[in-house]
């Protein structure tokens, strides 16, 4: 699929083109939602809202090549909103989930790793490490200078190194 062409067609009001884009990125959206939200129903709510917002706003996207970055950012924002709304109950369920996992590194989920990060770093990490999006794209989409992105990624790298280190107590994976 020629993504840029399809994005441009969607921007010109073609509903089918927009549907094609969402279907193309469905798995990526699921990965983002799964990495940020524990509850499947919440993930569904987040993706529904994200699709509607993207449909409303796709014409505003100035650079069609950034569609994926932009879509993932909308979804990530929705996930955070839902996470905040549920924050009290989520904290309890997260604790239970982590406690019940014991030493089970196999049970470590992306969400737990990301929860080790400062909130402003989570989206960057998802975009940069999980979706391999270039710093330039992220910078344009988030309207944050490239230098700031790099500096935040450096901070995230340190926090992730701590979270992923193969030592007792860390959210290890090996």
């Amino acid at each position: 699929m020629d993504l840029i062409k399809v994005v441009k067609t969607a921007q010109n009001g073609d509903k089918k083109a927009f549907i094609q884009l969402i279907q193309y990125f469905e798995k990526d959206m699921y990965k983002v939602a799964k990495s940020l939200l524990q509850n499947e129903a919440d993930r569904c709510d987040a993706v529904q809202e994200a699709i509607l917002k993207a449909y409303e706003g796709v014409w505003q996207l100035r650079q069609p090549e950034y569609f994926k970055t932009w879509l993932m950012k909308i979804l990530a924002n929705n996930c955070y909103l839902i996470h905040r709304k549920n924050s009290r109950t989520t904290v309890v369920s997260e604790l239970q989930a982590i406690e019940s996992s014991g030493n089970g590194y196999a049970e470590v989920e992306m969400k737990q790793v990301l929860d080790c990060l400062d909130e402003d770093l989570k989206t960057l990490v998802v975009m940069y490490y999980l979706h391999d999006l270039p710093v330039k794209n992220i910078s344009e989409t988030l309207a944050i200078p490239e230098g700031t992105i790099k500096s935040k990624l450096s901070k995230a790298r340190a926090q992730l190194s701590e979270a992923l280190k193969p030592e007792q107590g860390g959210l290890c994976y090996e």
Partner: protein
Amino acid sequence: MSEIYTDEQIRKLLNKINEKGDVEVSPQFHKRVQDTLNSLPQRRSNRKRLAKVSALVASFLMISAIAIGSLNPTFATDIPVIGSVFKHLNNIQNSIYDDYAVGVGESQTSKGITVTVNDVAFDGKRVIVGYIIKFEKPFTFKDIPDGWEDKIFAWDELKLTIGRNRLKAYANTIYGQYTDSNTFMGVGKYDLIAPNPEDRTEDVTIPQQPIDAILKISMISDNRKSGLDSEIKGKWNFKFQLTKDNAIADVKVVEPKISVKTEFGEIKFNKVRISPFSTDIEYEAPQDPILGGYEYNDDRSYLSPGIWVVTDDTGKELKWEAEYGLGLKAPKNKEDIIPRVVKFTFANPGSKYINISSKLKSDKSPRFEVKIPLE
């Protein structure tokens, strides 16, 4: 001190964790995606808004060529003498650009496409570039699908250095018209919006000496083709200079410091910049579907400047053109107040005020109305 992993190590570890879970989309998630897609409404007002913007440059009349002298004699011989692109693309907005146009006349050819930066106009915040794009292979209008006759897409990047400030801007779409079987003539608008307040050009003194501009284009769309074939990747790089000309002298900036209360929070109108090219309104407000925000629902949509009715003191309606978020932080909550700037078409020179009102379709009276003095 803990070992810091490299990007590759982190990527590998995170991907391992990610792949371990359900990489297959769950049926519940898939169903919700499908249900949402099936229930998508037809386009609403936002599409019309885009159509309005496109319409600014959609209907043109060709007029006879008027030669102007190029300020860059080195390249002047490279192009036919045809005069200002803005003059050719004759509508009111482009006529204004023509009043401030400076000839450049630099051409670059790559992959069978010759791009000429024919002229530029600059008001300190927006650079208008008049392009002539010549395709080696001729075509007929039948070759161009409906809806693609008035635009060419480009991957472009304009870089300016003003003092210590380095600014970047993109047009992405060049609006105009095909003028013969090989040629498209159009206008690219580059808004110099820096998210960092310190980099904003209002706060930067435009120097007397010319400002160096570097424009790089790496893709031009050939609308006769579809799919990847339509993207002609090449190298069209230009260097030209912007001068402190009349357009900048004719800019007026006021700081009204007026605010209006809405049910979702306060809208603060901080700065209005009236230039020959546009009317920029800098304001702070709770989120609406702006670039970077996307907190959208019908109730809040009247906060969106795209549906504001903005008029000058003659009653002329100023049309929405573009909007940008300002500030280094992306909004997280719909309650977050993010400064932003919205660009409307130009007000009549000498206007004493602009009036802004906004309402939803179902409203009988505006949700808010504010008069902003320009004196």
